[in-house]
């Protein structure tokens, strides 16, 4: 392959990836804010107060939703605004997205339905077409389950003495989805690379055509001048 075409193809591929990164990061910036509002709303809707007889105080979940929700959201939001194309941004977004899932699951009392947020988020993260981002999200889910399984097992498994490998069972379902998402990311990158190469070849051909046309025009001008 012509090295000039290859270099241009690589440049075009990088440009495409950056453009996609910016678009997806901005989408996540909006999503993170929406999720934050949803978390706070869920806390107010599900458990607004803790009671002692007829006395009530604001429930701990409301504080957690407001403070932890904001804390989880702030870094990926700033990165998505100021460094939308940077690889670090997408990894922080992936980790935050999984932490938001964990928070939302907790605030809804561990509802099975809320666990779909994890799987939906993984699919959204695949928009980056970067399989390493999927891996970051998976590591966060597995680490969360592993840490809770060690220090706080009832929160994940309902019993205090689960088998050590139980976190693998939960993470296994995420891995199941990962296989297809990672495959789609690799396939998508291959397609992007092929498209970039085609564009680089077209650009080179166009450039060659333009040079030929210019040379022909110059020759014609010289002939006209000579025959005049």
């Amino acid at each position, binding site marked *: 392959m012509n090295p000039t075409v290859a270099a241009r193809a690589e440049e075009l591929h990088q440009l495409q990836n950056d453009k996609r990164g910016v678009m997806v990061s901005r989408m996540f910036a909006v999503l993170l804010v929406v999720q934050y509002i949803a978390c706070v709303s869920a806390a107010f809707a599900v458990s607004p107060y803790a009671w002692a007889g007829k006395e009530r105080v604001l429930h*701990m979940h409301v504080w957690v939703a407001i403070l*932890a929700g904001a804390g989880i959201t702030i*870094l990926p939001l700033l990165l998505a605004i100021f460094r939308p194309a940077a690889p670090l941004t997408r990894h922080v977004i992936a980790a935050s997205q999984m932490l938001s899932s964990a928070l939302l699951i907790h605030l809804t009392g561990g509802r099975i339905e809320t666990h779909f947020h994890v799987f939906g988020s993984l699919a959204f993260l695949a928009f980056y077409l970067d399989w390493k981002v999927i891996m970051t999200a998976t590591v966060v889910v597995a680490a969360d389950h592993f840490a809770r399984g060690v220090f706080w097992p009832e929160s994940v498994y309902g019993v205090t003495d689960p088998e050590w490998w139980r976190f693998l069972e939960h993470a296994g379902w995420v891995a199941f989805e990962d296989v297809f998402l990672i495959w789609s990311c690799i396939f998508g990158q291959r397609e992007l690379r092929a498209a970039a190469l085609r564009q680089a070849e077209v650009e080179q051909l166009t450039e060659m055509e333009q040079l030929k046309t210019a040379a022909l025009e110059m020759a014609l001008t010289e002939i006209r001048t000579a025959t005049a």
Partner: protein
Amino acid sequence: MEQVTEPMKKQMKRRLLTAGLILAASVWIATVAAAYEAIRRFETTPGLPASAPRTWPAATAVTRTPGTWSLVMLVHPHCSCSRASVTELAEIVEKSRRDVQPTVLVYRPQGMAAGWERTSVYDAATRIRRARVLLDRDGVEARNFGGFTSGQTFLYDDKGRLRFAGGVTSLRGHAGLNSGRMDVIRIANERTGNGSHPVFGCAITTRGETR
């Protein structure tokens, strides 16, 4: 005076942005750690355990059907954690022998507006098969049974002997498999053994309010 050039401005801007991002990263890590610890502490801290009478309380107005086992749960209708307890109670009733009579005692303090106790927790309790839902005015029955915490469950056998006292959730507000639920089902079905489990929920009465 030194003139601020364009590259210097750019460098200052970059430094400011880097400092902002480092600060945000620190807040992010600290928040995640603090949230985990706060949630862990909140969820794993049980309520006051009951000092339940070993036999069916004489003072209670709750009637016991002869020849049946009695499963009694104390519930604060506004305690969001108790939704999980009621869900677990429904599960226990489904998986236990039919001669276990469930009763849900819904706390209602004096001086509250009409319908104060009609919450989603109350509605969920009314949907439990075979369950009686009774109002516990001012926590009198909670005191009779020696219970303090919403979600507190008692299982008495057909002779009125206490077989289980405790909660039926693994944590505050978490429905799902747990040893409290499993113990009640096992004792009710096999008719052997005793059990206890930490109870997670809002306070109905305090120690100072006991008889």
